[in-house]
């Protein structure tokens, strides 16, 4: 039997996608379906004086028009926040309601005000234009630094100075003392700009209600159908959970933006109940830009202290985090527990303190976007280290090595306890950096840089060495940190009577290839062929309660749940096999899909045992028939992938244009099930991280209009913006989960942004440029050069 774990098996999901037979939410057509168009605020901040729907109601094809008042009158609440962070003084964060449709005030451009439902999508759109909303426009605030000033426009009355919470982590006194004694301090002011995730499939949701069974179905392009069902039933619509089925069919990319419970999901479900007809809503791209939760948006002042030997002695960080107009589902966790806790990085820094103020503004809500907090932490650390290296006149790789945590495997050596709450599982940080230097030919690159500089050409080399916490997460730990949910994962392995296997998983794939990777795990372990295993996900009616896919958790947590189910299958199978072979259980060994009596040629196949479990004529006494098991896996710790990246750029000083020439990534994601899929995850992550460094950025004007609201104004990386990636690996297994895996979905995004910016700053260092703010557009780079020249 072929070994499947560790093999680049071709994906089983591909055939439907390359032939156009995937099934995304907007592809579904239900009988008697209607179409919703949402009336959205054109203002960032305004009081709603009145909403007149009479002309819209009378328009051709219109079935119904609902306003915020209609929804509020029916007793429906707003969408909830799933994570609570407390103020430093212990007070609960400010948690203003986020109604499905705004009632008295709109708080960002795109805030939903009314919904029009019609027989066709075109009729719904036409009629939506006839809804007349009388607004009293208010001053808006979009910048966090302005939002906290006295006298700034107030987004929510219940949050004075627009502060949702303040928060700190680490030892302030010890850190301040470290800075007092420092031989050198490097300080940077960093804008980690707002990004718009832009999955290519726009969000879509269909609500359906069957009065005969009193059951609702919601089809939605979501990363976690069970969480949507729970939040929508228990907190928004008040429908019993067993009366609601949530289905996420094929989902065209998520990157975090499809984790959250959006108002449109509750809206179409509520409308379907009202109308007794299915209601479909699909975002137009302009709605995606305006209403998909955005990412990042930090303003940070960060300082790193060094002693005379170049050892890091302290890190002090002050961050203003923009949450947008409302609290999205996991928003409070991103700039706190997924950010502050990562500020140890790979370094032995003995004193760390981080202070975060989370702020409401009249902008789209901000939440997790690929990496979620960890890219922001890595960006500031890696920019500081590299800036310090330049200031101290030492090689940036050497400075890192000097400060790295020594290798530990988490088995023979204990995990590494950080200054900021986490305990790293296993790591070999020197290993990835040494490998990177070799694979990238670092010495050769420096020589080339020197030669080109003599010719007036500006090559830059930038590093980034990162760690991330993923595989979220031990439920008790995150519960203590404010999560209003457990973060385990569930899997059911159902062996059919013929020995074929169906696996039902609570995680959800939207490009990650779970149908292949998970089947590899099962087939490898049971000694079956890949095609004997089918993976089912994305339907709350068939799969056990799962927490979904985000934070690079599916394999580390969901895969571990599958592994645990397989343990139970094999344990029961062994009992049946022992009975059929008339041998003692302990004399059996399972290999290549069969149980063999040790030291003999007597054996029985997995398929024969499966058949006996369902046709139990000759069967162990007292044992239940059937062969299926469910496992819920709650991880013992986070997993901590890490890596070392290097970018090489050339800058044209005449135009400011940055050309990314080379990108090398050496990652350690623990054990790898399918190298082809992991490489693909890394490639995609790199493109997004490079996009942040060079191209992407959400821009609001002073009045809160989203200026970067189309693909003409918001630059997603294209094929001709990117170089060939060189991707390599080191393997340090995770010591605490059954597969030894760490997670690979976000490494590329986390590692690449600082590497590219560091490379550009390195290229411009002959001009005296010390810092640049992202995205590094030609204009910004050119201006920085001019400014440095005149300084």
């Amino acid at each position, binding site marked *: 039997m072929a070994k499947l774990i560790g093999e680049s098996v*071709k994906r089983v999901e591909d055939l439907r996608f390359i032939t156009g*037979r995937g099934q995304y939410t907007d592809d579904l057509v239900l009988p008697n379906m209607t179409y919703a168009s949402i009336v959205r605020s054109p203002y960032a901040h305004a009081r709603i004086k009145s909403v007149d729907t009479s002309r819209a109601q009378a328009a051709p094809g219109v079935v119904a028009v609902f306003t915020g008042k209609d929804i509020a009158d029916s007793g429906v609440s707003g969408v909830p926040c799933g994570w609570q962070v407390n103020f430093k003084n212990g007070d609960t964060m400010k948690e203003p309601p986020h109604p499905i449709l705004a009632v008295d005030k709109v708080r960002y451009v795109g805030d939903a005000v009314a919904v029009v439902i019609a027989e066709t*999508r075109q009729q719904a759109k*036409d009629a939506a234009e006839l809804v007349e909303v009388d607004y009293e426009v208010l001053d808006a605030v979009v910048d966090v630094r302005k939002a906290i000033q006295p006298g700034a426009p107030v987004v929510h009355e219940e949050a004075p100075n627009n502060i949702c919470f303040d928060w700190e982590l680490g030892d302030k006194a010890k850190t301040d003392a470290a800075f007092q004694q420092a031989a050198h301090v490097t300080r940077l002011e960093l804008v980690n700009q707002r990004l718009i995730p832009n999955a290519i499939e726009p969000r879509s949701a269909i609500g359906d209600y069957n009065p005969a069974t009193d059951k609702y179905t919601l089809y939605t392009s979501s990363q976690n159908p069970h969480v949507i069902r729970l939040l929508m039933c228990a907190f928004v619509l008040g429908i019993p959970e067993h009366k609601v089925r949530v289905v996420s069919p*094929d989902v065209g*990319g998520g990157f975090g933006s499809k984790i959250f419970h959006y108002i449109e999901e509750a809206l179409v479900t509520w409308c379907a109940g009202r109308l007794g007809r299915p209601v479909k809503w699909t975002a137009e791209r302009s709605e995606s830009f305006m209403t998909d939760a955005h990412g990042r948006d930090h303003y940070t002042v960060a300082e790193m202290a060094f002693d005379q030997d170049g050892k890091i002695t302290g890190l002090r960080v002050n961050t203003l985090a923009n949450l947008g107009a409302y609290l999205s589902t996991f928003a409070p966790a991103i700039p706190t527990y997924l950010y502050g806790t990562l500020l140890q990085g790979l370094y032995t820094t003995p004193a760390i303190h981080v202070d975060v103020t989370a702020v409401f503004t009249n902008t789209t809500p901000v939440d997790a976007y690929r990496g979620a907090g960890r890219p922001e932490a890595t960006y500031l650390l890696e920019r500081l280290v590299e800036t310090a290296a330049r200031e101290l006149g030492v090689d940036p790789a050497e400075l890192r090595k000097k400060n790295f945590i020594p290798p530990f495997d988490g088995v023979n050596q204990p995990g590494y306890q950080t200054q900021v709450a986490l305990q790293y599982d296993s790591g070999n940080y020197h290993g990835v950096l040494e490998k990177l230097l070799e694979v990238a030919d670092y010495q050769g690159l420096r020589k080339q840089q020197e030669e080109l500089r003599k010719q007036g050409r500006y090559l830059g080399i930038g590093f980034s060495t990162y760690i991330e916490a993923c595989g979220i997460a031990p439920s008790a730990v995150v519960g203590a940190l404010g999560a209003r949910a457990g973060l385990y994962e569930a899997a059911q392995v159902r062996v059919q009577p013929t020995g074929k296997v169906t696996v039902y998983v609570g995680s959800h794939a*939207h490009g990650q290839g779970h149908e292949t990777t998970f089947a590899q795990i099962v087939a490898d372990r049971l000694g079956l062929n890949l095609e004997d295993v089918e993976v089912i996900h994305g339907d709350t009616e068939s799969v056990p309660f799962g927490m979904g896919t985000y934070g690079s958790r599916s394999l580390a947590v969901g895969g571990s749940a599958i592994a645990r189910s397989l343990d139970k299958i094999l344990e029961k199978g062994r009992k049946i096999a022992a009975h059929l072979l008339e041998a003692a259980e302990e004399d059996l060994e399972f290999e290549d899909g069969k149980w063999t009596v040790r030291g003999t040629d007597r054996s029985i196949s997995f398929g024969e045992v499966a058949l006996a479990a369902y046709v139990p004529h000759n069967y162990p006494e007292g044992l239940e028939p059937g062969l299926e098991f469910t496992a819920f896996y709650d991880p013992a710790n986070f997993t901590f992938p890490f890596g070392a990246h290097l970018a090489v750029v050339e800058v044209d000083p005449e135009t400011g244009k940055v050309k990314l020439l080379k990108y090398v990534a050496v990652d350690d994601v623990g054990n790898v099930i399918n190298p082809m899929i992991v490489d693909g995850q890394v*490639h995609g992550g790199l493109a997004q991280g490079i996009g942040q460094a060079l191209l992407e950025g959400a821009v609001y004007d002073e009045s809160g209009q989203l200026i970067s609201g189309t693909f003409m104004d918001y630059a997603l990386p*294209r094929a001709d913006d990117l170089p060939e990636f060189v991707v390599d690996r080191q393997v340090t297994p995770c010591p605490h989960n059954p597969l030894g895996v760490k997670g690979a979905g976000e490494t590329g995004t986390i590692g690449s942004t600082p590497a590219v910016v560091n490379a550009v700053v390195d290229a411009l260092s002959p001009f005296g440029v010390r810092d640049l703010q992202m995205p590094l557009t030609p204009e910004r780079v050119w201006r920085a050069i001019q400014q440095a020249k005149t300084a």
Partner: protein
Amino acid sequence: MHSTPEEKISIELEVNGQPVQAEVEPRMLLSDFLRHRLELTGTHVGCEHGVCGACTVLLNGDPVRSCLLFAVQADGQKITTVEGLAPPDGRLHPLQEAFREAHALQCGYCTPGFLLSLIPFLEENPDPSEADIRQALSGNLCRCTGYLNIIKAVRLAAQRMRAGR
């Protein structure tokens, strides 16, 4: 301007080799016509402003953005969508095959648009350089792959198509 439903116009066209006759509103987009009227949902709509390329189909063999054309503009023309790429016997087009082998897709949403943009490109450029391929791809957005494996797939398909000639 706010539209009373306009008079419908009769169109006749060929879609994936099959004759199609329909009555459509003049404002109906070709992408909506293919997806919602003909239920050819393999053509995906990603941006409705002609930038992302997900909705690319062939019009008389040339790649076009179906979100930027009205269905009435396809009157009398031949349209090919992703559903029409593989011959009915179940074989795949060499580029489809190469996409699978090179892991050139993840979520699959942009994939039909890439396939339909690249097939005419490969017919005109049987032996493209990497720079040619990146240039050819730059009209389509993919948020998952970072494009590297798409480039590999194009090379692989080009090689096989040359060998098969």
